[in-house]
């Protein structure tokens, strides 16, 4: 009984109203690997990243135009003209965020959806950059979802080549000083050059992990190797516009020559050089340890049990980073089934709450507004490190208070639900006596439901 509650809440996204708890929790989780849909129709109906890159370019060009006009004319416009063109991208963001939420509310594979959210956060892009505003959804849909059940190395390459990542971490504009274009620019006294932002975050956040032994030279060398990994369809200069909107390896800005990263030499030419380095990083023991630790923290508790980390690390190394093998090890390990509860993030809590009351579709603005108020707006972690995954970041007094307020609002909005029955279904074998008593003693069905949504069980998974 209790294992069903763990499967629903800790591995999944919370129970859904009207659905019986899984009788065989481990099998229920494993079977989701075949049930998961990487590209459902709702996603295919959205603009893809080439379309979004084009929208961004148009918005940027319109912005420049509007600014020029505003400076030339006398009459003050009612809204800042330079921001008006980005409305289409804001709408695209709202649409994509809504699709993400609705998929999570209705999915037949909640464990795999949770893993999608996990990896999107591991490889975080944040919409506080205008260019990420439209592309963040496409990033998750195109780079993360199709690779969530594949090899880590393929996931890594898909992520680092996605326009959202290349633009968010400034890689698209990084120019090798000795590349063809770098030399021309230097001769004209207009030197553009290297930007090491993406290279640093690949080593620190995406693969090896911070303090795992790489040096500043490794960062710089990786940045040089990655020059040329760019996005077409944006630049004013025809030469830099590439064949079209989307990922583009631009040889004319690639730094030529051999690179040395972590003591190993890479003599490949062009794009193959960066790819070879990333392939090695993807199966590096430090990467295995880093990924194992993050997964163990997500499923095994804020202080992940060392035994669980070791199991995941070995599964990762043994399989060359085959993710389903790692997930299977996670499901079969005893630690997540008995570990201390995790404090739900606002995103987790919102999904669990909406699933509990049987919401199937949510208007995008309500979703965005609630998550803003709760402190975790979709795809806006504010930094490439993504959202933190431990209680101190989420279990704040004010954060808790807001959840309680939202719980009351949601409960007031849905039709009559018997919270006492629902509670047993959401937390089979795991409902506490204080919660049971509070529900029984509530003064109205809506109040009982609000208390359930705000209950200690609901705050944790």
């Amino acid at each position, binding site marked *: 009984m209790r294992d069903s509650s763990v499967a629903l809440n800790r591995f999944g996204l919370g129970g859904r109203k009207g659905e019986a708890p899984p009788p065989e929790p481990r099998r229920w989780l494993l079977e989701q690997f075949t049930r998961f849909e990487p590209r459902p129709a709702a996603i295919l109906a959205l603009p893809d990243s080439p379309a979004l890159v084009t929208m961004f370019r148009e918005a940027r060009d319109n912005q420049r135009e509007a600014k020029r006009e505003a400076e030339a004319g006398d009459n003050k416009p009612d809204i800042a003209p330079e921001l008006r063109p980005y409305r289409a991208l804001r709408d695209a963001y709202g649409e994509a965020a809504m699709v993400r939420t609705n998929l999570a509310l209705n999915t037949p594979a909640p464990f795999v959806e949770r893993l999608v959210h996990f990896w999107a956060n591991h490889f975080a892009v944040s919409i506080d950059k205008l260019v990420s505003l439209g592309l963040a959804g496409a990033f998750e849909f195109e780079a993360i979802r199709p690779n969530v059940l594949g090899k880590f190395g393929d996931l890594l390459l898909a992520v680092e080549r996605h326009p959202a990542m290349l633009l968010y971490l400034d890689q698209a504009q990084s120019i090798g000083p000795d590349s063809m274009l770098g030399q021309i620019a230097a001769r004209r006294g207009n030197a553009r050059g*290297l930007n090491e932002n993406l290279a640093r975050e690949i080593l620190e956040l995406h693969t090896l992990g911070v303090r795992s032994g790489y040096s500043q030279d490794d960062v710089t060398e990786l940045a040089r190797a990655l020059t040329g990994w760019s996005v077409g369809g944006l630049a004013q200069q025809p030469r830099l516009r590439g064949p079209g909107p989307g990922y583009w390896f631009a040889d004319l800005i690639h730094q030529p020559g051999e690179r040395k990263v972590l003591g190993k030499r890479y003599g490949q030419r062009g794009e193959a050089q960066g790819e070879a380095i990333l392939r090695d990083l993807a199966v590096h023991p430090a990467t295995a340890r880093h990924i194992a630790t993050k997964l163990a923290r997500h499923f095994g508790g804020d202080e992940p049990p060392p035994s669980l980390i070791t199991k995941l690390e070995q599964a990762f190394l043994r399989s060359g980073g085959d993710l389903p093998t790692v997930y299977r090890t996670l499901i079969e390990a005893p630690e997540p089934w008995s570990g201390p509860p995790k404090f739900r993030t606002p995103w987790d809590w919102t999904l669990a709450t909406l699933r509990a009351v049987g919401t199937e579709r949510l208007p995008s603005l309500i979703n965005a507004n609630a998550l803003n108020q709760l*402190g975790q707006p979709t795809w806006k972690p504010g930094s490439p490190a993504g959202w933190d995954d431990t209680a101190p970041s989420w279990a704040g007094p004010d954060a*808790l*208070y807001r959840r309680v307020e939202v719980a009351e*609002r949601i409960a007031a909005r849905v039709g009559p639900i018997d919270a006492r029955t629902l509670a047993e279904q959401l937390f089979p074998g795991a409902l506490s006596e204080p919660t049971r008593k509070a529900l029984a003693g509530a003064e109205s069905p809506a109040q009982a439901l609000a208390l359930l949504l705000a209950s200690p069980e609901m705050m944790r998974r």
Partner: protein
Amino acid sequence: MIDRRSLLANGALLSGALFAPRMAWASAPTERRLVFVIQRGAADGLATLAPTGDPAYAALRGELVDIGGGIKLDGMFTLHPALAQLASRYQAGEALFVHATASPYRDRSHFDGQNVLETGGKLPYDRDDGWMNRLIGLLPNSDAKALALSPAIPTALRGPASVSSYAPTNLPEASSEFLQRVGRLYAEDPQLHGLWSEAVQTRAMASLQGDDNGRGAAAAGKLAASLMTGPEGARLVMVESNGWDTHANQRGRLANQLGGLDAMLAALRDGLGPAWADTLVIVATEFGRTAAVNGTGGTDHGTGGLALLLGGTVKGGRVLADWPGLGPSALYEGRDLRPTTPLNRVLAGALAGHFGLDPVRAASTLFPGGTGKPLEGLIRT
């Protein structure tokens, strides 16, 4: 709002065994106030307070040299033009800049750098509690109220002493009947009980503070001030400021960021009124940025940076810097401003002076990672 206020006033929520006694709002015997503003993302000190008198500066910075309207503080340093109100505080002798400063951290990861800055430790993650929390224990009455202006508690405020957090919201108010039932439901839950008690009290306090919803930089400063005034006001407040990581197109973005900071600090001062005379504001960031402009009109992660002490107790109107220079051989690892003044010496000296603490004891408690001798003479006595 009236609802909850009267509810608290007649003690319905505060009575009985529901709330532990430490939750009482204490009026600390100290009138001294501290605001710690963290600039997350490594603010560029070399643009904020530009060493325009350094012969190497202009060439390193190239397109980033944009000091039209900048305010010359002395023969070496020019303050960014977006900091006009701060400049007038400098002229009034209430602002002290410390340049070429750094925490003990010497690598270039934001998250590790912020951890060292906030914990006061020597290495990232070598301790769990923050220096602001340990400061509470050093104050004459350990009930001195501490508050974070954010939904969760940042690392600098984490630790054994009780602290609260508050961030403005536009959610409608929940009914008081429901809130009381939630309080009872959480009563036996060790974690939620404490959080809930803190939240209810802070909300009650904020509801007494007028209509400002705290959006925007000036509003945040005003809100912080409102939560620090009156006998029950918080004595220690931490304000989180994000968005300082300027890898590309730094010029416009940094000007916006600095403009916001300037407005926030000015609103804080105005809001505190007479209490400004007892206030110390510290503005610091995890590390500086590279000395040279990078290939994309921005700067990358560096080492030496800038800190600011501001307020009625500060012996200001000066720039404190053992200036290392920006020549190629002077740079740290060939790329960053070399740190010459340990930030922890500055913080320990300022905090000890401001709160009348023994400097050596303050330094070893707040910065067990080591400070060297706390700097003296930062605070008017």
